């Protein structure tokens, strides 16, 4: 039994490597779609998350502590629960059903962006807060306006922002709940690495699942290592 399972793994691994190195069109298509959806979701999350993090990190206002606490608490939101909420909102009978976002890549991008926003906001806020408070004043004494001084602080916190980008992208590409419930794993349209791995394993298509899992690992590692290298070069 153990030997049979062992053989299955080795066999699956070999076939998976074959699929990867032969440039199997399905594998390539699913991988590229995953990168595209997660990448755009990360960009979207930063478009709305960065201004929020900048305000949270630089301004003192009533309710700031509560808002920070909210984003920190949302870091651990179960992806399936968020997927269900989004499903209810995006479905035909839901409040924004008319936008036809369910089972659509755009819906997946929005869903993943919502999922990673707490990471974007919390990590970036912490990075901004850790910058020497005199940097903002320094920029002003050198002639910067309020906005230019805030940009100077953001630049100083770039290592933390890079970490936020990496963590957000990794979370988006590696999660299953939102991708499956909002995307529905429609072949050629919304199937991504995680959804295909989960469903093809159930169907017994082990080699494709292993091939995609290896690619998922490689993407996550490659991104993390290259971001680390960029950080090191900066310092």
């Amino acid at each position: 039994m153990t030997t049979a399972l062992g053989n299955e793994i080795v066999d699956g691994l070999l076939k998976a490597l074959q699929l990867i190195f032969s440039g199997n069109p399905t594998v390539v298509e699913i991988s590229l779609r995953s990168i595209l959806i997660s990448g755009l979701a990360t960009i979207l999350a930063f478009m709305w998350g960065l201004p929020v993090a900048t305000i949270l990190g630089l301004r003192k206002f009533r309710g700031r502590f509560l808002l920070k606490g909210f984003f920190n608490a949302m870091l651990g939101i179960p992806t399936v629960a968020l997927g269900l909420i989004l499903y209810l909102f995006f479905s035909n009978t839901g409040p924004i059903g008319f936008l036809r976002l369910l089972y659509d890549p755009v819906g997946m991008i929005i869903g993943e962006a919502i999922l990673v926003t707490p990471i974007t906001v919390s990590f970036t806020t912490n990075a901004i807060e850790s910058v020497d408070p005199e940097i903002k004043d320094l920029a002003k004494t050198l002639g910067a306006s309020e906005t230019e001084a805030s940009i100077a602080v953001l630049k100083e916190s770039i290592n933390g922002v890079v970490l936020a980008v990496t963590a957000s992208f990794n979370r988006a590409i590696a999660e299953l709940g939102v991708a499956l419930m909002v995307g529905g794993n429609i072949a050629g349209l919304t199937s991504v690495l995680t959804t295909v791995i989960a469903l093809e394993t159930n169907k017994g298509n082990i080699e494709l699942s292993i091939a995609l899992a290896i690619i998922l690992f490689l993407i996550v590692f490659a991104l993390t290592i290259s971001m680390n290298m960029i950080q090191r070069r900066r310092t």
Partner: protein
Amino acid sequence: MKTVMELENISKTYGNITALQQVNLKIVEGEVFSLLGPNGSGKTTLLRIMAGIEKPASGEMRFNSVKVEGGNINDVRLKTTMVFQKTALFNTSVYKNIAYGLRLRERSKKETDEKVREVLKTVKLEGYEKRSAKRLSGGEQQRVALARALALDTQVLLLDEPTANIDPKNVSIIEEVLSWVNKEKKTTMVIATHNMFQTETLADRAALLLEGKIVKVGVPQEIFTLPSKLLASYARLENVFSGVSKVTGEGTSLVDVGDGVQIETAFEKTGNTTVFVRPEDIILSLNPIVSSARNSFKGRIVEVSDLGAIVRLRVKAGRDFTVQITKRSFNDMQLNIDSKVFLAFKASSVQTV
């Protein structure tokens, strides 16, 4: 002479703490003005208001005769700049640090390159462009901060304790540069310091700031020879301690001046008192010495000021003591920032204010 900055009834509070009270001051074009006062007297707050990075609670500031308000605060920031006590540098190269303000002023790349090279030469850091600013020594970092300020050729240069916490070699370079800039470029400077020797050597005029109030404005000699006994003692600013005195019964008193420091005096007094020890009356040694001196403390050097043949040291020994020794002793004992030292002075050297 033209007045560059004019402060009228400036007050500032932080919660219940009053940092500045009704400050009135005029800074004249081309002068070096020293804000002299002990730590916590409001010097930094006043400089920050002058730099346009802090708003006064009340009062008015005029820059080149124009009232400074929210709308024109950026104009003030473009015409003044400030060097902070705690060196603040961007986490990037020396070049980019210095170029920052020039880029905001939309200078061309060629102009920026030339200016960076010129100011680095001024602060004796030629060829440092590509070095990581944060990896330089404390003194070199402060020189980069000064170069960055000088690059902007602003009308007013504000300096907050520019030589605190750096070694004597760097102190000399910075003081030399400041004198040169004032003479050659006629830049108006306001220097906040607690070091009266620096005031004497650099400043044309000075203001004595005590507990947020300006008690005297004049040429440095006027400040140091104030008629009032109280002001004369405060004007020394260094080694003035207040506390509660108790009689020991042996002809002396012990004054508890806080932070675990008790100073023995050769007079008998009970209750609140202020005492003063002259920096030159304190003996400094590397090891504890057995002597007739009734006061002995262990401490660490936190600031060194090179005054030519004389070196003044600020030693943290619970409270901060200023000690004056010769340059020869300083070199022989191989002293520097953070050196562990022992201080001793006689009870009879302690004067009451």
